[in-house]
């Protein structure tokens, strides 16, 4: 998609046409692309040659896996037919099976709660911090760098650390609550707290991403606007409300959308902290898909792939919604 776009803007570099170019083919091409005025045959070939690696790459690493995933979800796989590759086509059976499963409603609800709560807090806290650091006080760069730590840590490290901190018997969080006179909370092992715990950890991990993008967005807002506003007597809140927030809207939109995609597919964090448990209390579509496909000794590839495809469709839906909003804005 990006490729055709870039290509359309710049076009292949024109090579000086040789006199021996085949006039027949040149005119035929001319009808397709008027900018390619009778250039030699080699220019078109070169363009395709430049495109070939990208097309091969996209095909091998994106199109084929997607096709395979769709194929897996539409066939009735057993371990035997997986090995022999002769699984019968079963239409929507796998989808019917997962949608009727008791876990489906829970996983779907958890996915939305997890995603929306994470995005809301990540964006809110990220924006507040970005505005704060935009004042450029002393030590601001150092502090900002410190806030990036969650982003730099490998996910297995941060997830395991959260899991230790939230341990109901020996975790530091319960110890702190105890010192403050509260009773212990079974963060990871109570059905009513498990989802909240993984959301808290995910918010912490997502703040730096929001902070960095929104901060760079703030840098592009001209300082004169604020000067003019303060001359007009606008207070800080009004400046934020009337200048910062509206001018940040394009950046905000992309931040929230990317956050949405990242968060919908979060798997490792939840898996490490709770395995989606207790029961299904913190299962999302992503962890459920993994559990179906790889979580037991007998893999259920078909239903696992079906859940994965549902997840892809949801993400696609949000992507289309975003484009719609963008179109309306640019009009």
């Amino acid at each position: 998609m990006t490729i055709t776009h870039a290509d359309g803007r710049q076009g292949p570099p024109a090579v000086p046409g040789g006199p021996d170019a085949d006039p027949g083919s040149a005119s035929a091409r001319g009808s397709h692309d008027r900018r390619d005025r009778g250039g030699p045959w080699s220019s078109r070939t070169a363009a395709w040659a430049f495109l070939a690696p990208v097309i091969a790459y996209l095909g091998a690493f994106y199109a084929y896996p997607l096709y395979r995933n769709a194929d897996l979800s539409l066939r009735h796989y057993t371990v035997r037919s997986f090995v022999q590759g002769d699984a019968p086509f079963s239409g929507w059976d796998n989808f019917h099976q997962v949608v009727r499963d008791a876990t489906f409603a829970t996983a779907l609800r958890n996915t939305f709660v997890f995603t929306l709560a994470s995005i809301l807090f990540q964006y809110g806290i990220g924006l507040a911090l970005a505005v704060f650091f935009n004042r450029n006080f002393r030590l601001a760069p150092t502090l900002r760098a410190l806030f990036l730590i969650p982003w730099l840590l490998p996910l297995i490290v941060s997830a395991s650390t959260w899991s230790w901190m939230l341990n109901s018997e020996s975790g530091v969080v319960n110890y702190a609550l105890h010192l403050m006179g509260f009773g212990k909370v079974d963060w990871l092992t109570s059905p009513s707290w498990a989802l909240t715990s993984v959301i808290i950890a995910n918010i912490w991990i997502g703040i730096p991403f929001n902070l960095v993008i929104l901060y760079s967005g703030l840098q592009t807002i001209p300082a004169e606007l604020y000067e003019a506003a303060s001359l007009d007597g606008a207070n800080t809140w009004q400046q934020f409300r009337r200048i910062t927030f509206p001018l940040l809207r394009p950046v905000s939109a992309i931040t929230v959308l990317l956050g949405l995609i990242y968060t919908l597919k979060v798997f490792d964090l939840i898996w490490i902290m709770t395995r989606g448990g207790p029961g299904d209390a913190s299962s999302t579509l992503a962890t459920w898909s993994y559990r179906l496909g790889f979580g037991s000794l007998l893999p259920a590839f078909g239903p696992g792939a079906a859940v994965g495809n549902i997840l892809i469709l949801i993400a696609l839906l949000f992507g289309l919604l975003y484009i719609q909003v963008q179109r309306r804005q640019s009009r």
Partner: protein
Amino acid sequence: MRLTRTALAAVAVCTALAGAAACGGSGGAPGNSADAGTYTFWDPYPQFDGSSAWAKLVGTCGTRAGVTVKRTAYDTTDLGNKALLAAQQGNAPDVMLVDNPVVSTLVDAGILNKMTEVGVPTGSIQQNIIGAGVVGGAPYGVPIGANTLALYYNKNVLAAAHVDPASVTTWDALTAALRKVKAVGRKGITFSAIGTEEGSFQFLPWFWGAKGDLTHLDDADGQAALSLWKDWVDQGLAPNDVLNNTQTTSWQEFATGQYAFGENGTWQLANAKKAGFPYGVIAIPARDGGAAPAPTGGEFVTVPVQKDTARYATSAKIVSCLTSDANLLSTDTTLSYVAPTQSVQNQQTSAAAELKPWVEAVAAARGRTSDGLGTRYPVISQQLWGAVQAALSGSKSPASALEAAQKAAANHQS
């Protein structure tokens, strides 16, 4: 607009990646070369590098069979799926060591040979140990060794609570002991009830100890076992975090020295010596006394199906070499496993007396996929650990959790 398109492309790419990775497309695995002089060998022991005694033994067995063995070690949870993918691509290894409950799944996939077909005798192996690898009456592998679960106890804690470990022979006696321990301010028992196969593995001795039946999860015996665990957690005799404990984190809890009992496996023996307090081992008690059957753990040596059947003769030589008495003794000593044959077990116990309770526990143990359960076990097990999680976390009562589990296992479409 340019930003939009780029973003959409990024979105498409992200989701495609996530979906494909999470749902398993095809993945290549280094497989066997057609080279007649090189035989591939997979095992789930990444902790042993090329210089380890195990790796050297594998190499020596190859040399004795007149070939070079190329060994690759995978993480144990990974090996089953790796094997399925490799078989799909037609490049399964010549010899493969797999976790015992995976054997029946691989047999179901049609990628393992019967031991009788490749000519490896299995007569000297204890029946209950090889049981996990027997499908339709025929063994599909040779166990390299066995491990199982028992109760480790902390002598200091039991002494402080005036509990005699020899008296812990029934569930009631165990619960009474835990109460005494709690009364003196120490902690009772720790185990792993996590929502994975490990959780089922740890629950099975109690389930079987109540004469529970895996094909009828919700009968009164199964409920009794689950209620036992639930009462312990509710009364604070077992910590709440057992729900999230793997067997390793459960061991770490026991190793703090605060707990009276820890349910754990043979493989922790080496760590027990380093724990810094005197420990002992007793069999897990059955509800009404005696040792409860615990599930067998440990790996099987298997010979996956090859296009070139002429390779089996050499593969069989490698298998026989790895499972010869002398080699079993050294391998099982390294792995801290109990040998699968009587004669090697005798050698083990005469060399190390502390293995005695473990040899007895293994003799009473049961394969998870034994008794014709085969590939029904993974389905049942998944429902079982789900029920344990639901009951211990309080979202369902033991009875209704097991009822739902039984219903789901029975309705499962294979």
